[in-house]
Structures are given as structure tokens and as C-alpha cells.
């Protein structure tokens, strides 16, 4: 029994039949003989036959196990160089990519997200933000009008900035208010590689006790470092927005060895301390509370991040362009 070579399924099967076959297996036959054995020897005989059967079964089990592992070691005939069945790949728009990054950064600093309508009334878009009627400040933003002002209403526009949502949030909520407001805005400007009739902004607003311009500088500095790297150079220069005072525009230094000064300042956002008129307009006590606000263009930042030269590529949606993001 020990000498039998059990290297094929057939050999194992004939071994099994030879020793353990139900009809004429050698060991089976020994079992059949038990009844003929003298009673005093029967027990010892039975034990020996049982041991024999275990031995045979163990050999079969071993042989079968060897067979399987032998099969494992054998090379497959699959052509593994064939390409896989790849799922179709989708992509997120580069503006989404940047916007989500901006949201993530501000989320770390405890900002919630608020949104508002793209068709906006004149009150929220202008008047409540301290743009007096017939003031040159209104010329700063070329506006699409939807409804001309009448006796009853001030008119309706496509929002020129996301700042009206500041008003909507402050109308609903009491300080402390700490939100960012992403959204689409519209400007009636000639379309070119650097301007489009719409773009996306992220507005930020923090109103609380003790909020200062220094806090604003710090937050935006952190933001710029998070987005453009820890060694980003930044400057705040005085500017004007009707709804903030003091107001500033923020530039970052964009190195470019080809330029005479080794680079240039690029404007990335506007900001300032919320004008007391705006706070009072939504019944927030401007003596008790101060606040800062800031706003940036998602397109502009995306163009900087990815070195995209033409703003129109965002709205053309050539899938070969989109596939890179």
C-alpha cells in the first residue's frame, strides 16, 4: 500500500477501489471477515483493520492535497497582457476642484456654507450693501438688468457678486456669523480670454464681537498659504467697496523669471471690514459687533493654480480639456 504511486486522479481512484471499494476492496473484505474471527481475537483484528483503513484514507487525502497544490504551481493559460475591463472614467470640473479646495480650507476655520439666488433684487445686490442709487460705485460692476425699477420695486438684476447672500444670512441669523458663500455671478462685460459674462465667486463673512482688520489679514494669509504654499508673498492695499470700510485688495507675488522684476503682483481677492451701514441695515448693532468680509474669483484662482490662459476654456467644456482634472 505504501508503494503505490498516487500522482494522478486516476491512480488515486484505482487505489481507492483496490483497498476501499465497496464490493471487493481489500480492506473492505477484511471488514467482512470480522464476523468469522474467533470472538477473543475479534477485537484486536478489528482494531488492526481500522488502522489499515485510516492509513489508506490518509494516503488518499495526502495524494489529493498534493494534486491540488501541484495544480496551483502550474502556469495559467490566461493572457495576462490583455488590457483589463476598465470602467469608463468621469471627472470633476476644474472649477469644482478649486471651489471644493477653498471650502475645505475655510471649513478648517469653522466657516459654514450659505447660498443664494442668481436672480437677485436690487435691494440685496446693491442698496443693502451700501451702494447708493445714482452713485458711481454702481458702475464698478457692469450689471445685467432683469426688471427695471418701478414705483413699487427697486428692480431685479442678475447678481453681480455673491455679497447679497451676506445680507440674506444676516437677515436670518444673529452674530456670531461665520460663513462662506460660493456662487455664480454675472457681469455685462466684453468676452475675452480674461473675462466672461459670468464667473464664480466665494464670499466670506465673519461678524462677531471684537473682529478686526488684523484678524482678516491673518485669515487670508493662512488661506493663501494653504492654497499657494507656505512661502507665498502677499500684500494688502487700500481699495474701495461700498459694503466694506476700510477696504483692501489682496495681491500675491507670482514669480516669473522672464519678467523684469522677477515676477509680478496678481490680485486674488477683495476684502474689508463690514461697513457699519450694512450692519445697521440688517439691525446688527455696529458699535457692539464688527465684521470682515472677503470675496474671490474661483476662475482666477483656478487659472493660477493650473496655468490656464483663457477663461473661456472653462465654459467650452472640451472633454479632452476636462479629462485632465
Amino acid at each position: 500500500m505504501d508503494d503505490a504511486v498516487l500522482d494522478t486522479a486516476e491512480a488515486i481512484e484505482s487505489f481507492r477501489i483496490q483497498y476501499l471499494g465497496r464490493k471487493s476492496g481489500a480492506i473492505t473484505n477484511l471488514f467482512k471477515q470480522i464476523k468469522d474471527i474467533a470472538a477473543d481475537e475479534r477485537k484486536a483484528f478489528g482494531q488492526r483493520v481500522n488502522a489499515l483503513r485510516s492509513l489508506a484514507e490518509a494516503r488518499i487525502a495526502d495524494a489529493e492535497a498534493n494534486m491540488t497544490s501541484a495544480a496551483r504551481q502550474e502556469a495559467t493559460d490566461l493572457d495576462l497582457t490583455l488590457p483589463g475591463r476598465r470602467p469608463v472614467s468621469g471627472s470633476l470640473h476644474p472649477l469644482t476642484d478649486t471651489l471644493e479646495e477653498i471650502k475645505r480650507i475655510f471649513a478648517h476655520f469653522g466657516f459654514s456654507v450659505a447660498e443664494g439666488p442668481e436672480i437677485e433684487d436690487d435691494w440685496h445686490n446693491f442698496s443693502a450693501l451700501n451702494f447708493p442709487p445714482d452713485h458711481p460705485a454702481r458702475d464698478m460692476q457692469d450689471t445685467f438688468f432683469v426688471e427695471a425699477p418701478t414705483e413699487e420695486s427697486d428692480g431685479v438684476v442678475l447678481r453681480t457678486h455673491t455679497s447679497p447672500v451676506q445680507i440674506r444670512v444676516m437677515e436670518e441669523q444673529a452674530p456670531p456669523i461665520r460663513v462662506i458663500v460660493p456662487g455664480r455671478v454675472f457681469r455685462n462685460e466684453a468676452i475675452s480670454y480674461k473675462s466672461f459674462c459670468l464667473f464664480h465667486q466665494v464670499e466670506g463673512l465673519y461678524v462677531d464681537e471684537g473682529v478686526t482688520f488684523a484678524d482678516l489679514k491673518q485669515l487670508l494669509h493662512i488661506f493663501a498659504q494653504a492654497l499657494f504654499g507656505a512661502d507665498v508673498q502677499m500684500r494688502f492695499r487700500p481699495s474701495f467697496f461700498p459694503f466694506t470700510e476700510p477696504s483692501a485688495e489682496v495681491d500675491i507675488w507670482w514669480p516669473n523669471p522672464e519678467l523684469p522684476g522677477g515676477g509680478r503682483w496678481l490680485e486674488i481677492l477683495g476684502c474689508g471690514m463690514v461697513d457699519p451701514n450694512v450692519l445697521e441695515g440688517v439691525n446688527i448693532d455696529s458699535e457692539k459687533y464688527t465684521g470682515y468680509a472677503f470675496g474671490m474669483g474661483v476662475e482666477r484662482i483656478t487659472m493660477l493654480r493650473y496655468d490656464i490662459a483663457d477663461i473661456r476654456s472653462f465654459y467650452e467644456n472640451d472633454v479632452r480639456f476636462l479629462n485632465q482634472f
Partner: protein
Amino acid sequence: MQISLNWLSDYIDLSALTPDAISDMLTMVGLEVDSMETVGPTLDGVVVGHVLERTQHPNADKLSLCQVDLGEGEPVQIVCGAPNVDAGQKVPVATVGTTLMLPDRKTGEPVPVTLKKAKLRGEVSNGMICAEDELGLGDDHDGIMVLDADAPIGQTMEDYLRGQGRTLNDTVYDIAITPNRPDAVSHIGVARDLAALTEQSVRRPDVNLPEAGGAAAERVTVKLVSPEACPRYVALLVRGVTIQESPDWLKDRLTAIGLRPINNVVDVTNYVMYECGQPLHAFDADQIAGDTIIVEQTTAPETFVTLDSQERTLPVGTLMICDAERRVAVAGVMGGENSEVTDVTTNVLIESAYFDPSLIRKTAKALGLQTDASYRFERGIDRDGQVWAAARAADLIAELGGGMRVDGMVDAHPVLPKPLVLTLRLSRIETILGVAISHADTVRLLTAIGFGVEDAAPGTLSVTVPLFRPDVEREIDLIEEVARLYGYDNIPEPKRTPVPNKPPQIAAIEVLRPMVRTRLAGLGFREVCTNSMQRAETAALFAGSDLHSGESVEIVETLNPISQEMAALRPSLLPGVLQVMSYNQNRGQRQLHLMEFGHIMHRADPKRSTLVPGYNEYEALILAMSGTAPGRWNQEARALDVYDVKGAVEWLLELLRIEGRIRFEATPTPGEVTSYRLDLRVKKRHVGVVACVADAVADTFALRDPVYFAELDWAALVELAAPQFDRDAETVSRFPSVERDLAVAVNRDQPVGPMLDVIRQFGRPLIQDVAVFDVYQGERIASDQKSVAFALRFGADRTLKDKEVDKRIRTIVQRLGKEFGATLRG
């Protein structure tokens, strides 16, 4: 606004600063330099020459041979083509090696040309005798420039010109003036900020200020009909003026800042406006009927010809300058053709007035005419700058035109408003800025820009606002002035960030949108971002009933579209996405799975409560597919169909945990933009549509492949889904489920959807899931029948007995038979 560095230097000493440093200073004090340009001719290599001898060129009639003394060495020969060149003249000579900007022969554009020693028609020429325009000194090209007879031979042209009082090289800053800086729209205004930063004071030119009355007032009468619209009107007279070209220094100043010189009178009014910010107008005094000026508003629409020869329609209420008989100017915007200064004018009436900013802005807007004057008036000029400016202009006109300033002036309504006095709390500066600025610094900074500062109650200052700062009305305005002069960059950043003791509120949509968007991208959808504005016709087509719950909606148009291509706002994301499909198909991209999140809008009943009454706007999500499910090496490509997009929607609803809440309602007939569609509803509320784009629409967009899409009311879905994400988890049953297949034959027109509903209904409470795994029509079944095979899964929180499952199956088969005539297949 263009600001010349030479001009600024008339009022302050900037010699210690480089032009770049000045540019940075301006930008950092709030006068942003958009661009900076070095202007003026390059005169390197151009010297004064003396023409010793002129002879005819032997080979060319129009050329002369000149022997020119350049002050060193032997005289050189220069060939010259100018008719006016002659022996004895002092002339500018561009020597060999000089680079001049000369007009290109073909284009006429100036290009740099470096002079070489050359032979012209066989004669040697060592350089070039130059005309004015060739040196960039003017427009004259009639002949060479002839210099003063006593010009030193060999002197550089630059030195020569400096000796003539001309400074041609200049740096010009283009400054973006913000609306809160009406005081800075002039050279003196800009100089004031620079003076404050460099601790100097502005040197204003000396002017003889006239007394009100005198001969001028005897001659001219001014009547202000609307004193609130024109609270001050100063008139001065200059007699016996000769209208002529302005002298070089004045032309150089104006040219440097981009103005075209016209004549001495007009140039002076422009010069003074750019000097101090007060717009002036010069009338031909002899054209002013009755020597009377009346300032009044129109009461009916009328037309008027402005001095640019345009006939303009004036709206009611336009403020006009009139004489005894007629209109002579649109106040604050532009003068009239009928009274402008011409070549034969001898007597000039100078108008220097203050007009109401808002009124001028309205007029300029209505006329679509922004002039240098209206730009300044509408921002608010110095309330008390009229007399100085008028006198300054009168002096200059008299000087440059050989005239006489008439004694006195008319000063109509010279009641000045009291200067505003504001209280500034030093503590408030720190509250706003986050840095303490000392009492002394605050006083110094404000005083430097013309504010009057006195100590008031402890810790406060009493600040008198100068009349040229109408924008400063409140304490916060003063704090801004202090901050910008102190320097924003000098305000230190705190070391730590305070955050309110309140968790940020995260709206469900902010969680679900990024999650769904990312998952859809994983499913193969590519996100696009399309224009919200489209043709009105396109918008109207997609406002049809089949995209909007069976009722078409009214589109929103803008009153002032950029073009007809973008006149209306999208009532659906579909047209934008179809455009993208067409664009990409034309570029060889046929496998298109697109998605977009975006606001769509239409008009609404103003009585409905929408955020902005009259407009319904909400965020939608579109999924659109065209092309094929791509083939593989052992799998054939398959055309996409509506089930692909329907499947994606079902997947999405499952992801949002609201699949059971949404009903799909089939409309097999064509609509305006769809061939057939499924409406998604929650109870009665329409939350989306799944459809195939109609052929006619596909043709309009020149689409090559059929498009299947789903447009969903994303805002509504989020509202439904949000509570689902707050649910507790259910324990998974430990007991095995039982799976059974069931095939039935039904009439081939029988929709499967209702059969599924019946199975779910009558499989209750044991049924957990049902799927369709086969739909068959063909030889093995009667020709009017089809076989539908379902896979059912039953389960409960115990081990199911075969008997109870069999009972459910029997009930289901019975109901399918009763409701749809279905028979069980063996």
C-alpha cells in the same frame, strides 16, 4: 487716469524716489497703478549741427548735399531730402549709430531704425538731418526742424530742448481711481497723498484770486434757476485772446497723459482740470446772447447739438446752461457747438461751477456720454475749488493768448456748506484695525492730507473734513484714511485665530452634492459648466411642458443682453449640455457621459413665496449620455439607450435612500424636446424627468448620436433625502433569505412596471427584493405574448418555511393573472 511724473514734480519734490518706488507708494496708499509707462523721444546720438554748405545732389533733383559741422572733427556730408534745408541753419542731426523710431514704409507703424553710414544715389551720407516727427517731438513732417540760430554746435539735442524749457522724457502712471477718492482725480490730488507719505506739503501755483463783482460782473449776469442742482457758478472773462496753438510745454503735458492738444484756450481748461480736478468750460463770450447765463433744468424732452457735432436727445430734468435765448451747454457733461471757442474767438467766458453729482450722473448715463468733466462732477469735486481754478485758467489764457483778464468775477450763490466736523475715538481705531495707533500718529496722518484735527474729550479727536473730501462723512471713513496712510502692511497679524464657540452648520446639500458628484464621476460622468445665458428662442423651446411637469414655464430675459446669443436665462440645463455634446462630437468625441449641477430659472407668480418674488430659481442636476457602452476584446460595443440613464437615476435615488419615495410616470408620446419621457414624482410634486431628446431638437444642435438624459430637481431631492441620513442603522437579519425565480407569460404590450408593483404589494410582508432578469419574445412563446422572468427574494427575522413562501408566490401569481392576464410558465 493718467498722471505724469514731471507734472507731479511741479507740486512736490520727488527727486529722491525712483519712478518704481513712486508707483509702489501710490498703489499702497490706495491709488492703484494699473500700468506705468516711460514716454518721450529717445534722443541719444542726436546733436545740434550747423549746415555750412548746401549743394544740389548730382544724381537726384530732390536731394541736397549738406556739409554739416557737428562740433567735433571735420564737417561731415549728409544727404537730405527736405525742401527747407539751407546753409547757415542750426539743425538736429542724428549721427551714425543713432536709433530712431521711423515709420515703416509699408505699415506706417514706427519701428526702430539704426542709422548707418550709407551711400544715397552715389553720395555718402553720415547721418540724418531730422524733422520733428522723426524725433518724436511733434507731428510736423513738412521739413526738417530748424533750431535757434544761437544753438551751440555739438550740444546734445536733449540739452538743447531742456534749454528751451521742454522736458520730454516722462513717466506716466495709469491710476485706477476708486469712487471714494474724488479728491485724487488730479495731479494736485495725487501729489497730496505723496506729500503726506514723504512729509512735505503741496506747492500750489500762485494765482491772483479775483473779488466777486468788478467789470466781469457788470458785463455778465448769471441766474441759477435750480440752486440745489447748481449751488455755485463762477464766471470769469478774458478779452482780446488770440486763438492759436499752445506752446510746447503745454502740449507736452497734455500729450503725455493722452490728451490731444487743440488750441490754447481749450488746452488750458483741460490743463487746469487735470491740475486741480475742477472741470472748466470756455465759451466764446460773443456767442452768449444777452451776456446772460441761466442754469436750469429741462421740463420737456428736447434735442441739443453738443460740440462733438452730435445731436442728442435730452431727458426731462437735464441741467442746462443757457444764454438769454437758447441752450449753450449740457451742464457738467459737454458744451454746445453753438458757443464753442473757435479760431475767430477773441473773448472767452470761463465757467467754473459745482453741479450736483447725482444729477450729472443721471444725465451722463441717459446720454451715454461720460466725459472728463462728468466723471469728476459725478464723483463730487472740491466744493470750494471754483474760484481758484477759474482764476488759474484765466491767467494762463491771458498769458498764452495775449489777452487781458477782465477784473472781478461773477460768483453766483457763493454760500459754502459748513465743513463737517467728526468725532474720532482713538479706541475705535483699535477696535476696527486691531492695532493701536498713537494719538500723535493719528493727528499727523490726518493733518497731512488736509484734515483739521483738534483734541476733544479724552481719547477722542474732533476732525474737520476739508471740502474736497465729500466722501468722508463718518468716523469709519476717518479710520480708513488713518489706516491707508499708516499702511495696511504695518498692521500686524495676530498669532492665533479666534473661532466662535458655536459649531458650523453644515447644510445637507453641502454634504450630498460633493458626495453625489464624486460618485457620479466614479460612474463615468464628466462634469461640465455651461453658460446660464442663451438665445431667447432656445430658452423658450426648453421652457416647454415636457421638461416642466406638463406645463410650460415663462422664461426670464435680461433687459440689456450682451448679444442675442445670450438674451435669456436657462429654464433647463439641457440646452447647455446639448451644446457641449455637439461641440465635442464635432471634435471626434462620441462617448459622452455628462453631468452638471446648476441653477435654472423661470418666471413665477409674484404672489408665490419665492426668494425673489416673480422668479422661481432652483438647483438642478442633469445627467446626459450619448454614444455607446464601449466594446472590449471579448464584448461587443452596445448602443446606449434610455435604460442606461434610467438605471443611473435609480442608482442615484438608491444612493440618496429615497428610491421608494419616487414614482416614475411614463409618457410614451413626443413633447417639445423629448421623443418620450418618464416624469419623476413624489406625490404630486414633479422632481425630474428621464427622456430621449427629440430628433428635431437633435438636428437643431447638429447632434450625431441620440441623447438620453435625466434632469432632476436637485434641491427637492436633497430635501427628501436629508432626513434619510439621520436614520438609525437596522440590524442585518441572521436568518437566511429564500430566493425564488418566477417566469410568466403576458400580452407583449403589457408594461412590466405595474407587474413589479403588484409583486411588491402582494409579496408583503416577506418580500425583500424583486428584479427582472429576462424579458423574452420569440419562437418559444406565442407571437402576441412575452415572457417576463422575475427573481424574488424573501426573508424575515426568523427562518422561513417553504410553505409560507409558496403561499406568497401563489398569491402573486394569482394577482398577476387577475390584473394582467399573466400565466405561469413551466
